[in-house]
């Protein structure tokens, strides 16, 4: 059973890929990248903001926080493999005027420590910044490490700002923007060698703002995170087929830029495709759908996202093809819908 409207690409005959448990990078072969943008951006920001501290639950090396720890060792707190404590202690730090940047994997912050984020950070409106690696399907390790529902969980929490950045260029801008916002923020973190894409689009991140990265007459893709990178690749491919694809990048999942979404989706004649690296339940797709329905805007609407099932283990490219969020699969889906 599946409620998904995605179409997986036909499995091509290709060499069997190996599972990479905790891959350091989601970058494709030959893609331009920048190393550890979160860690380096935080180090720089911390020079101007002495209240910043870094805290992690035994995942400093795997969230690029080790770069901060090396640069500012007296401001780094190792809380052990204890995510509930991590969130509670971050609340306490913020209570005393610090600005904790806490890191762990998205599954642990959103699932294991949910009540602690909800009660000690969001309900008390503490100035805590949560940056989590392995968001959505960015690990082939299986459901224990695949945070397919992190956006849904974090979105459902009052006071919480939720950001799903696309690439290194954006992450570098998101970090200071998180600090400039007074209150709790959840950011999906891409770590290691992070793809560099948006620098070619004269792009500037603004909290709460969606940005039209390119225009097109036939299809409007509304996307966040790495799916924007994919959407731009899809748009380039379909250009060759004379299919115009517009890409509206929505890095801030909450608060949602409903004005930009309604403006773009309200243009008649375009199919709207929401693409997200997340279960189709409760993420950007349903947020956009609700926005459109409430406003009486009813374009042809399709969702590309992860199915409502426990995802498989395996190599990430294989899984992205299987679940329809690779560039190949996404291109095939959109062509099929036209």
């Amino acid at each position, binding site marked *: 059973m599946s409620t998904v409207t995605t179409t997986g690409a036909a499995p091509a005959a290709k060499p069997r890929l190996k599972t990479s448990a905790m891959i350091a990078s989601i970058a494709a072969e030959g893609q331009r990248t920048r190393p550890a943008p979160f860690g380096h951006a935080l180090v720089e920001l911390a020079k101007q903001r002495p209240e910043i501290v870094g805290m992690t639950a035994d995942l400093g090396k795997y969230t690029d926080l080790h770069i901060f720890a090396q640069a500012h060792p007296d401001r780094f707190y190792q809380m052990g493999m204890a995510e509930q*404590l991590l969130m509670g*202690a971050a*609340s*306490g*730090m*913020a*209570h005393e005027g*610090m600005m904790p940047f806490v890191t762990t994997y998205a599954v642990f912050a959103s699932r294991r420590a949910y009540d602690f984020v909800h009660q*000690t950070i969001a309900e008390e409106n503490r100035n805590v910044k949560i940056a989590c690696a392995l968001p959505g399907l960015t690990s082939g390790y299986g459901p224990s490490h695949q945070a397919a529902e992190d956006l849904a969980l974090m979105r459902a929490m009052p006071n919480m700002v939720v950001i799903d950045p696309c690439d290194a260029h954006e992450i570098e801008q998101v970090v200071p923007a998180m600090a400039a916002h007074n209150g709790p923020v959840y950011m999906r973190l891409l770590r290691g060698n992070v793809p560099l894409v948006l620098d070619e689009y004269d792009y500037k991140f603004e909290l709460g703002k969606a940005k039209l990265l390119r225009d097109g007459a036939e299809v409007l893709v509304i996307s966040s995170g790495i799916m924007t990178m994919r959407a731009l690749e899809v748009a380039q491919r379909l250009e060759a087929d004379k299919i115009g694809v517009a890409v509206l990048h929505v890095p801030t999942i909450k608060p949602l830029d409903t004005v930009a979404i309604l403006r773009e989706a309200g243009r008649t004649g375009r199919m709207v495709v929401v693409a997200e690296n997340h279960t189709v339940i409760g993420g950007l797709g349903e947020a956009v759908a609700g926005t459109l329905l409430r406003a009486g805007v009813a374009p042809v609407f399709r969702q590309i996202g992860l199915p409502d099932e426990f995802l498989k283990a395996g190599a990430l490219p294989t899984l992205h093809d299987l679940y329809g969020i690779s560039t190949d699969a996404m291109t095939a889906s959109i062509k099929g819908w036209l």
Partner: protein
Amino acid sequence: MDTRHDATPLGHNVPIAERAYRIRRNALLMGEVQGQGYIGQALDIADVLAVSYFHAMRYRPEDPHWEERDRFLLSNGHYAIALYAALIEAGIVPAEELETYGSDDSRLPMSGMAAYTPGMEMSGGSLGLGLGIAVGIGLGLKRKNSASRVYTLCSDGELDEGSVWEAIMSAAHYKLDNLIAIVDVNNQQADGPSTQVMAFEPLVDKLEAFGWFVQRIDGNDMDAVVAAFDVARSHPEPKPRMIVCDTKMGKGVPFLEAREKNHFIRIDAHEWQQALDALDAGRTA
């Protein structure tokens, strides 16, 4: 005039036992407003709160956010009725608000929440949160080179929560000698006697093995409570401090002490006045 609602703070020379009496009295008055409440707990912890607010802690009633104050975290948020009684007695919450307890638009909701009440440093209700927050506050105070301390009140049932032990381990790891935790061992939680719901003894041995400086006292012996708080504050080792307080549910109201022990003591409408009278009869100050 109904003098029972006179809960005006007294002068600084009032003995601590009298403060404890007045905290109990405030709690009973609030319980009567709602006709219910965690009265058994409020009565058992009144002595500890009296020592906290009228002997150990530094604070300014008129400025609940005074930077140099000692922080008090109510991890067991259902004890809010007890803390409100102490905050009223301390002059942090005006006595007139007592009769709003648990009502619409009151600053005194039944479960303690930071945004509602002056002097309430955290939002409780969900158990097992406070000690972790206290670790962060302890670390933050040290970052600021602050001499303030963070006190945290937990319940014995709360020890079932794994997060409490995460915090216990980390407080020792970070040598948080500015953290004083109090565990109220009244041996009652929702489903029955705490020791039967989940065995937590030998508590002192466990906490010492985790690297804490631990004292265990009769939490309703005022002299013992004062002495334990003094020792906790002056102890020289770089360790977090725990005061395990054995207390008696309903303390100070003999017929409630004798009532079949229950997490949520049932009190009939006509019994509130009897409880106040019984409390007055046992007044020691």
